[in-house]
């Protein structure tokens, strides 16, 4: 009995603490702080942020870090050499330093991921916004176009486009950027549809807010949360797609190093069996990068979910 009493008391105390926390959270702490607090709880996401920071720095300072080796010079004395002091991760079939190539490959992966995703987030937001806000025939037409684009397995369209315009890092960015938008358009459209029915939008409209004001000040800021989450997962997806295309020989072309293209050396069964240093590190880099970005996306989703905003 007594224990139960105490438990209830403790619970009451807990609730009041929560309340205080809530009040403080809203009045003093502010939204940004709150989101950061919630994000911090996701341990794996925090670790991933640290990993991605290191990877980003490694990519930016790749030439410094890999000196005296550079990713293009062939060391003809050391073809397919296993890791040694001179070449920490060994060399590839042309005697190029693997570490230097991996560091420079990071530049390709990260920049393709960032640029392609920015392109399709912009397209998707505009189309989805127009579709959800305008409704009617505009909405019907845009959504059917979205359906059509989504019906083609994206890799097949990408293959076709690569065959037409030729493989290169620039073309890959453009192609991935112009094909990724349908899911974003659907997401933004849904948000626009439900938000434009909400009371605060009606209130703003009654107060005489302009259409531009309603879209940019009242609706769009509320879409940013889900968009940031989608963009994070999008970057991971774009990095995977680039790696896959380069792996098939349809992406970044040699001699420019890219992780996917380095991995394609393992299509030779001898390399696959006897020289794991040539294919395992680039594969592991792709896996670590994509995994970290996905964890960050997961952490952001938890932190930005408005339904649990005040817990």
């Amino acid at each position, binding site marked *: 009995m007594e224990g139960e009493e105490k438990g209830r008391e403790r619970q009451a105390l807990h609730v009041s603490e929560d309340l205080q926390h809530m009040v403080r959270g809203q009045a003093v702490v502010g939204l940004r702080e709150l989101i950061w607090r919630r994000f911090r709880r996701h341990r*794996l996401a925090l670790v991933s942020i640290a990993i991605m920071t290191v990877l980003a720095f490694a990519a930016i300072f790749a030439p410094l870090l890999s000196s005296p080796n550079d990713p293009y010079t062939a060391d003809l004395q050391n073809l397919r050499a296993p890791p040694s002091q001179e070449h920490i991760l060994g060399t590839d079939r042309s005697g190029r330093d693997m570490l230097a190539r991996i560091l420079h490959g990071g530049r390709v992966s990260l920049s393709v991921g960032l640029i392609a995703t920015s392109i399709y987030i912009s397209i998707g937001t505009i189309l989805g916004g127009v579709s959800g806000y305008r*409704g*009617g*025939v505009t*909405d*019907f037409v845009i*959504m*059917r*176009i979205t*359906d*059509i*684009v*989504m*019906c*083609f*397995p*994206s*890799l*097949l*369209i990408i*293959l*076709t*486009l*690569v*065959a*037409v315009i030729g493989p290169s890092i620039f073309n890959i960015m453009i192609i991935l950027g112009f094909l990724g938008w349908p899911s974003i358009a659907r997401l933004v459209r*849904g948000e626009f*549809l*439900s938000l434009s*029915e909400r009371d605060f939008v009606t209130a703003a409209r009654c107060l005489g807010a302009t259409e531009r004001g309603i879209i940019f000040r009242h609706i769009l800021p509320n879409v940013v949360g889900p968009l940031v989450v989608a963009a994070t997962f999008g970057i*991971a997806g774009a990095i*995977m797609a680039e*790696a*896959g295309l380069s*792996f*098939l*020989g*349809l992406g970044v072309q040699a001699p420019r190093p890219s992780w*996917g293209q380095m*991995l394609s050396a*393992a*299509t030779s*069964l001898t390399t*696959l*069996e006897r020289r*794991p240093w040539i*294919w395992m590190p680039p*594969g592991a880099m*792709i*896996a670590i990068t*994509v*995994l970290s970005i*996905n*964890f960050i996306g*997961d952490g952001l989703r938890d932190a930005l979910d408005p339904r649990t905003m005040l817990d």
Partner: protein
Amino acid sequence: MVGSAQTGPTASLPRFEPWFNRGGYTLGRYILRRILISFPVLLGITVVTFAFANLAPGDPVTAMIDPMSGIEPGEVEKLKEALGINRPIPVRYFLWLKEVLRGNLGYSYVTHRPVATMIAERLPQTLQLMFTALSISVVLGVSLGIYAAFNQYSLLDNVFTFMVFIGISVPAFFFALLAIYVFSFRIPLFPTSGIKEPLSTLPPIIDRLHHLVLPAAVLGIEGVAGYLRYTRSSVLEVMRQDYVTTARAKGLRERAVRIGHVLRNALLPLVTIVGLSLPSLIGGALFIEVLFSWPGMARMAIEHTLGRDYPVIMGIGLVSATMVLFSNLVADIVYTVVDPRISYE
């Protein structure tokens, strides 16, 4: 509520209603409408394919003429005329569409064989690979997902959650390389590639299975992760519902509640998810077929992309897009039929 079958409070938004929507709503009408709505999409797919065919170097019309038929050059001109080479693009589109509807997907630039025949030869292997992978991922993903949900926050649940992230983050081609490295070289259990052993003494079906296990398992990994995650969250969601509490309050045994109330409701939407998984299966098959030298349609697509054999690429694109559209349609209809909660208001 129009378009896709969805439940929830946001379902009652006013939206544009095409003509076939006005009036009452019944299941039959919903299905009819869903089928009708697929036609513009199918037409759109052909338009996109034709547009690509026109963008590509070479001429889609000439590609429709059998290069092996041994006709005179003058005849070729006449045939081209009949196929509308000098007509405006919209006319050419309809002539092209007519050929496609008759089953003529053109002739390969490289092998000079009809594309439709080439696809028909390769498609069965791809389907075999995809369905094996799909079965592996559904069975494994759903059962592990159910276990994880019923043991939420247990050690295994956390391990599964982590593995889901690995499953969706590690590219299929890296998994494939690791799988060959481990299960063909380090522990020689499975063949590295191919579809059958030339001098095998095993019965053909065993030999085929022996070759199928590794590629199908690798192709299924991403799906396992997806179904695990989906099942787990769906089961957890349903367990919070009032009717589950009611069932428990009625004094039903936990087992009966879980099977009869929770799982029945939580697993229904899987129909849709399975239907929507086709594009990612096709995408994954591209890599798996190349790495395991599996003689399927996806590998043919890659080989012919490198050789810029546009009629083949277009044909494969058209066939797979149609397959995807059809599977989405079936998934949507099956879901509306099996789930009484859906309103087609």
